């Protein structure tokens, strides 16, 4: 393993080779995008603050807060499936702060006539991405259609609907019951939503429970969910797979399968994705799409123990010494680790060993 690479750099390297091996091509893009694209799709963005500036010709541009919108903008409805991956920085306001952050993202998008295979392939790549980050990882899979289908049967306001979806995302059964009572929602719907809240875990047991609720759960969507779970189990990834309806995304943009990936010791989801046919429609496309992003900045938490020293060897030389010999000594000592040649010990500098250049030449002469 190359120790010069940080944990994040190694992960990016691994992910890119996994995506390339499945026929995904790198999509390289500019850091800037016309602001208008974000103004039209503001709700799709994780944070609605965008860094804007005027181009030399007066056009309002933005530093990209998102990659997916740019990829859709540059895609056309065409034959076949467009498979791309990216490795880009995005600029967003960090939650709970009023300052922008540069966030490194690696992700992929699969755009076109999305079928069961495409969904399974993207989920497989999401699972492989998590495995390449940590063995202790979990991929939560949900089906937004199942949740929306239950809620849409009730004649309730958009506000109550979004509150119910939020509660499912929080596994907040007690507030679902209260909300349903207040909004006059039937017991069947209330019970079904509570079941979606408290039913999670290994696909086998969850699917068995969901199948027993055939009166309220759309069988077509359930079989779609089952098919992808079976495909991933077949790939030997069953252990890391959970069905969990707390994975909720904005149903105005997303539909169908949605998923999030977690690794132990990182407090937030490191991977997030789903099917976003509705966003495609909003942007005037007929085809469907599915994709995900890996939040590389979160992986700093996984960094193996910090380096104990700034440098392995601190080589102290006197002014006027033989420069050629000094360079030679640095190269020789460099074979055993990092070397810093200095005239004196720098402030707050840590090193594993200190060698004086005179001593090196003495040793060599001896």
């Amino acid at each position, binding site marked *: 393993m190359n120790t010069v690479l940080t944990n994040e750099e190694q992960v990016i390297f691994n992910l890119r080779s996994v995506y390339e091996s499945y026929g995904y091509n790198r999509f390289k893009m500019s850091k800037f995008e016309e602001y208008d694209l974000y103004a039209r799709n503001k709700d799709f963005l994780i944070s609605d603050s965008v860094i804007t500036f005027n181009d030399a010709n007066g056009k309002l541009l933005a530093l990209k807060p998102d990659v997916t919108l740019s990829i859709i903008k540059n895609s056309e409805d065409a034959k076949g499936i467009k498979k791309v991956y990216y490795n880009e920085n995005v600029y967003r306001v960090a*939650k*709970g702060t009023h300052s922008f952050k540069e966030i490194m993202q690696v992700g992929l998008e699969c755009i076109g006539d999305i079928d069961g295979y495409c969904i399974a392939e993207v989920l497989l790549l999401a699972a492989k991405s998590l495995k390449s980050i940590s063995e*202790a990882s*979990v991929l*939560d899979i949900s089906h937004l259609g199942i949740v929306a289908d239950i809620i849409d049967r009730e004649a309730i306001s958009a*506000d109550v609907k979004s509150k119910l979806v939020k509660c499912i995302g*929080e*596994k*907040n059964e*007690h*507030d679902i019951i209260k909300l349903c009572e207040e909004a006059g929602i039937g017991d069947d719907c209330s019970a079904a939503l509570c079941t979606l809240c408290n039913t999670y*875990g290994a696909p086998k047991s969850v699917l068995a429970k969901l199948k027993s609720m055939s009166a309220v759960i759309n069988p077509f969507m359930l079989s779609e969910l089952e098919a992808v779970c079976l495909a991933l189990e077949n790939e030997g990834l069953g252990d890391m797979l*959970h069905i969990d309806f*707390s994975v909720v995304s904005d149903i105005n943009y997303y539909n169908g399968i949605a998923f999030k990936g*977690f*690794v*132990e010791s*990182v*407090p*937030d*989801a490191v991977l997030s994705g789903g099917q976003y046919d509705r966003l495609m429609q909003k942007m005037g496309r007929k085809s469907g799409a599915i994709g995900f992003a890996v939040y590389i900045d979160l992986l700093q938490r996984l960094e193996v123990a910090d380096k104990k020293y700034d440098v392995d060897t601190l080589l102290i030389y006197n002014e006027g010494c033989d420069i050629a010999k000094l360079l030679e000594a640095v190269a020789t000592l460099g074979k055993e680790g990092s070397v810093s040649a200095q005239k004196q010990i720098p402030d707050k500098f840590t090193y594993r060993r200190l060698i004086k250049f005179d001593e090196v030449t003495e040793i060599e002469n001896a």
Partner: protein
Amino acid sequence: MKMLNVALPKGRLGEKVYAMFEKAGFECHSIKENNRKLIFENEAVGVRYFWVKPSDVAIYVERGAADIGVAGKDILLEYEPDVYELFDLDIGKCRMAVAAKKDFRDNPNHTLRVATKFSNIAQSYYASKGRDIDIIHLNGSIEIAPILDLSDVIVDIVETGTTLKENDLEVFETIVPISARLIANKSAFKFKGDIIEKIVGSMAAQTEVSK
């Protein structure tokens, strides 16, 4: 054994909550010692407790320093942390309310001046009613704002209403009932789910008995 990190809110509510954890089998006797320590652990049962300011519990849990914690619904509504809200403990009950001087009459022609510690809750409540408001964010002694004509109304937590009464104020509307909630970090729930579920189960049984 994986340790479960629990953030408890300092104060009476936290003591009540700890008693529930103890009954659930997660005792840590050192927590009852009279000292200024903030972190207590019992390796034998795999639990580590820490006392934090009640309004900070959600931050500790969302950021993963604590796997679970207990926070008031007011804090959850105000800061909207990305956490699981697993159980309503049905303790620490109060309500978020709009209060004003007894002779207050709302004039819809004027922007309503609202003094509060809970800007987000006040903002969304009045937005849902389509009322134009001017938020005055205060950090304490909210009750004096209408008396000194700093604001028309206040949005604050009301428990017994005694403070309001003593300051000649009264409740005009209830925004939402408040109680303590057991919250969990989403990632921690994936890897320590069994133990967290055990705690939720015991809390549910204890709450049922006390009803």
